[in-house]
């Protein structure tokens, strides 16, 4: 029995939710092109805030810091996360429950606890030993620690999706450890590793709280810059930086999805 009234209202509800989800982002992008310095009303289309943005040294410095942080931390976490995910898969018959806990801890823990514990840890170390001064270095360390689990899970899921016979075949052909890594595991994991890198990259660009608490005076990133700028009110310039960030993250996320798609396509074609 199909109740059309029910399904119609469900559909209308869905459209309302989609509007709810995209309205804030749309407003940010829209008002970044607003000529007037207000969010109350859209006057004229203008690119002047973007011009102002790209001639501001503080903003460009923050942009550079964000990129250095994201690329370095993603590179480190991709290597470690891939190894961890591979280890979880090959040794999945063992009792590794503690490892699952460890991997989910960074994912579930509230940002603030994460940021505060790393901040107090790094400051204490710095006061005692004079190393790990808060700055880009400590931020990279913190970012790597929350990126590793995501990369590991991505790689693990790729391996679980494979036919276990492939591993047997490798064994039957007397491949040694290095050959197996070089000709089988790395090629087959390539989409997952690339997707993992980009996922780690977006996680890093998106993070504010953990960066904020582990940063030093000279390591302002774009989200931290926005945070301090909005204390003076929402300006079109803030909206313009936000739009650049939204664009960057969406582009990278789409690339990641494309790699995921390649992965699922190859899985289905084999089945």
């Amino acid at each position, binding site marked *: 029995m199909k109740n059309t009234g029910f399904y119609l209202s469900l559909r209308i509800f869905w459209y309302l939710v989609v509007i709810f989800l995209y309205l804030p982002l749309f407003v940010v992008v829209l008002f970044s092109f607003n000529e007037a310095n207000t969010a109350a009303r859209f006057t004229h289309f203008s690119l002047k805030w973007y011009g102002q943005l790209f001639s501001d040294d503080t903003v460009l410095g923050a942009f550079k810091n964000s990129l250095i942080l994201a690329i370095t931390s993603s590179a480190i976490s991709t290597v470690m996360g891939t190894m961890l995910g591979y280890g979880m898969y090959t040794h999945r018959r063992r009792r590794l429950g503690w490892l699952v806990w460890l991997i989910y801890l960074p994912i579930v823990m509230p940002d603030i606890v994460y940021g505060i514990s790393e901040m107090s840890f790094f400051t204490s170390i710095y006061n005692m030993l004079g190393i790990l001064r808060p700055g880009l270095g400590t931020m990279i360390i913190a970012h790597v620690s929350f990126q590793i689990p995501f990369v590991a899970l991505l790689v693990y*899921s790729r391996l679980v999706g494979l036919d276990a016979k492939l591993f047997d075949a490798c064994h039957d052909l007397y491949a040694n450890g290095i050959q197996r890594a070089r000709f089988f595991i790395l090629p087959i994991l390539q989409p997952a590793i690339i997707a993992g890198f980009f996922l780690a990259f977006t996680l890093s660009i998106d993070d504010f709280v953990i960066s904020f608490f582990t940063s030093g005076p000279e390591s302002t990133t774009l989200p931290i810059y926005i945070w301090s700028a909005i204390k003076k009110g929402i300006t079109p310039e803030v909206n313009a930086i936000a739009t650049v960030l939204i664009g960057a*993250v969406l582009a990278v996320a789409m690339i990641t999805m494309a790699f995921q798609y390649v992965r699922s396509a190859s899985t289905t074609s084999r089945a």
Partner: protein
Amino acid sequence: MSDTGTAWQAIDSRPRQRRISWDTWHLLGVITPGVLWIVLFLVLPSILLMGIAFMTNGTYGLPQMPLSLDAFKQLAGYGFLGWSPGNLYTVIRSVWQTVLSTSLVILIAYPVAFYITTRPAHLRPLLLLLVVVPSWTNQVIRAVGWMNILAPGTPVSNLAAQLGLITPEMGLFPSKFAVVIGLVYNFLPFMVLPLYATFERLDYSQVEAARDLRAGPVRAFFHAVLPQTLPGLMAGTVLVSIPAFGMYVIPKLLGGGKSLMLGNLVARQFSSASNWPLGAAGALIMIVVTLIGLQILRRMSRRLGGDIEVVL
């Protein structure tokens, strides 16, 4: 994306096998760098933080010996000037705002997840993606979006003023209302994904059986549908409520000082208020809640057949 889930099951429930030494070395070799990094830079700092909670606050805001329960007493409201409810209010407000926003998230996410399952199979991943994409952008930016929408003088605020909900010069932001909107907005995808995972494998024959037994739609829902989606609901509740409970950015930006939550209280003790033990005590509460949530998540994920990772 979804097949990751077996991680929980496979790792947890396989019987112990005879250990081969080379195998063990291999395991240690591949997992040590990642595990060591997380232990050294996340687990160890959180343990130290929990230790700080039991120390005394020094003159310069840095923790000192002797060990005491001062921080917890302060959290409960006991200070130099006798009892004052400020801190306790913050804790209660955090719990209340978490409960309120989690309930709203459930009410919105449940129909959404169901709607997606009614669409053709090839469209579903796309619709899920549509729900998830906004959460890929920065938290601060999403809050800025809502500040743009709810500020005084904007169409939404004007409408609310005309309806008599607020006075015209107020605007809907900053307010408790804005905080709840922000929390719901932030965490909606984390509920939709696990719920969708349960809806996708819903056994409709149970619903048909209920209808055959002349159960009305409401009874059929409560007896045949809701119990089946409970694991997804529980998993979603954990994934929404724990981060919401510790939320820092949204209350600070959208609440305007009057709706601060536990996360803000903790942060303040490590900056302007300079009382590390008190901040650590607040963080300790959140860590305990997190660990309880992790345990629930692990149970639910087993019952779900492991689709939790969809959230990633």
